[in-house]
């Protein structure tokens, strides 16, 4: 839209700039605090603490398998729910979708005690499984809405050619669905990397914890040295910042297509 008046343009630009300064301020604070007293030494000290690389490694392991499993499940399911006809389709879809609304806290009791019985506490697979379960509903909605927009004629054409359903899925639909799968992957990574409550509950052993436990660990272990605490915060934010810089278009699109429609 074109703004008519000069005054209006000034008003808009100044307003936006002030808001942007406010919005960047907490990030500025984080960087500034991370350099407190010892400057970059804080980063070196954080990285040299044997626990920190372990947190990062754990986070990457959990995120990797969480993404791998959930995206492969979702590729099949989104295609099935969008393009195939079968009995109970609506019911099953709503069953999964309802999971979107459930707070993690409401299932913390069953998850904790079931995992305890199965020796799944302080183990990667327990956390990975729980993270997948909470990601599937959102991921399904995201990828299915993309499949819904691919024309059905593609399926029919391939079907007439004698291609099996699996061949159509694998050779026709998968290559087309790449953008949706990429968006879901980015969201899955962010979810897993930033997960807090499940790690807090299931992973009591610092050797198995992920990056979101790093700040608590550094506050407790280092007698509350703020410089190192904030250095660890900057370090654990780096992967998400990199993701943001490269993929924010995907994230913005996913926000709207994934939103409850």
């Amino acid at each position, binding site marked *: 839209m074109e703004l008519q008046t000069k005054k209006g343009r000034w008003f808009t630009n100044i307003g936006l700039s002030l808001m942007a300064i406010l919005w960047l301020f907490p990030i500025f604070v984080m960087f500034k605090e991370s350099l407190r007293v010892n400057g970059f030494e804080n980063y070196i000290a954080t990285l040299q603490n044997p626990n920190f690389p372990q947190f990062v490694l754990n986070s990457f392991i959990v995120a990797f398998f969480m993404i791998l499993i959930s995206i492969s499940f979702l590729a099949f*399911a989104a295609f099935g729910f969008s393009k195939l006809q079968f009995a109970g389709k609506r019911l099953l879809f709503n069953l999964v979708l309802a999971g979107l609304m459930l707070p993690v806290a409401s299932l913390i009791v069953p998850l904790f005690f079931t995992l305890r019985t199965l020796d799944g506490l302080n183990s990667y697979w327990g956390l990975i499984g729980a993270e997948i379960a909470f990601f599937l509903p959102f991921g399904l909605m995201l990828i299915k809405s993309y499949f819904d927009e691919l024309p059905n004629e593609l399926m029919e054409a391939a079907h007439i050619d004698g291609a099996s359903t699996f061949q159509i899925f694998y050779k026709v639909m998968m290559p087309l669905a790449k953008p949706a799968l990429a968006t879901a992957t980015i969201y899955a990574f962010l979810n897993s990397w930033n997960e807090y409550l499940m790690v807090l509950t299931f992973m009591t052993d610092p050797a198995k914890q992920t990056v979101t436990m790093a700040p608590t660990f550094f506050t407790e272990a280092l007698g509350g040295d703020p410089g190192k605490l904030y250095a660890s915060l900057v370090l654990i934010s780096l992967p998400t910042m990199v993701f943001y810089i490269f993929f924010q278009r995907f994230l913005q699109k996913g926000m709207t297509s994934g939103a409850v429609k």
Partner: protein
Amino acid sequence: MQQATDLTKSKPKLTSVPPSAPNPIRKKERMKQNLIGWAFVAPTVLFVIAFIYYGIFYNAYHSLFSWDGISFEKVYVGFENFGRMFKDPEFYNALKNTGIFTVLTVTIQAGLGLVLAYLLHTKGVGRTFFKSVFFFPVVLSPVVLGAAFTQIFDFQFGYINEFLRMIGLGAFEQNWLGDQDVALYAIILINIFQWTGSSMIMYYMAMLAIEREVFEAANIDGAGFWRTLWSVVFPNLKGTTFTLTILGVIGGLKTFDIVWISTQGGPGNSTEVISTYLFRKSMLHQEVGYASAVAVILLAIALGITYFQMRVQKKMD
């Protein structure tokens, strides 16, 4: 698209299309279709049932018992946990705080997001940059934000209080996260900071779909900035506003991280929300049966909202 046409070209063979087949064959065909469909969705559906629906059942069952989570013995108490909960002022306190949190975050995030989206919708310098800045906190971990804001809100050395003292308004300084009357609002502010960007993006995308003529007509009529926003743009974005409200309410019920990191529900229980209350009862106080009852209520609220949302959405479409 390319892929599809290639496939058609490479295999110009036509299989015979079955004419109206007799009943048993059609039935067999349908069964085959069902099996294929189920096979595709099975991993996802079974996974969700195993983790989420099993969990709901588990909660419902254990809400009828008194159990500390440690001993083998679970004592059947019927609906006693629910009776206790509905008399527990702490439960109502958590509900009340969740309510305040939800109402304020939903309205402010939507209002601010709408204004920002509208400002970004105008032509001018740096619009992409501004959009990136406002949306950025969405990808940050609440752990990170909580810690950064702890520094900003600090009573002695915090940026807000130092700024207030600097401009001579020292009388207004607060113990932002340490004062019972203020802490909840301070946390709400952090939430607003993190999620306004997503409201903004959703409104922005929706505004792109509004016809140019609508804005132009408003302009010709001499409607000013606020007037256009309120009486022309906003009514065109009802769907987005509804979606944001639902997401915000659900978000309020889900809120845990930011509270636990900033205040752990304190001081006193002034920032206790339903999720932190549940976590405290189950994991710290070992009142597992009671916590299950709370979880049942929380699940009922969440599913009730979902049902409501689906009904309204159907009507809107």
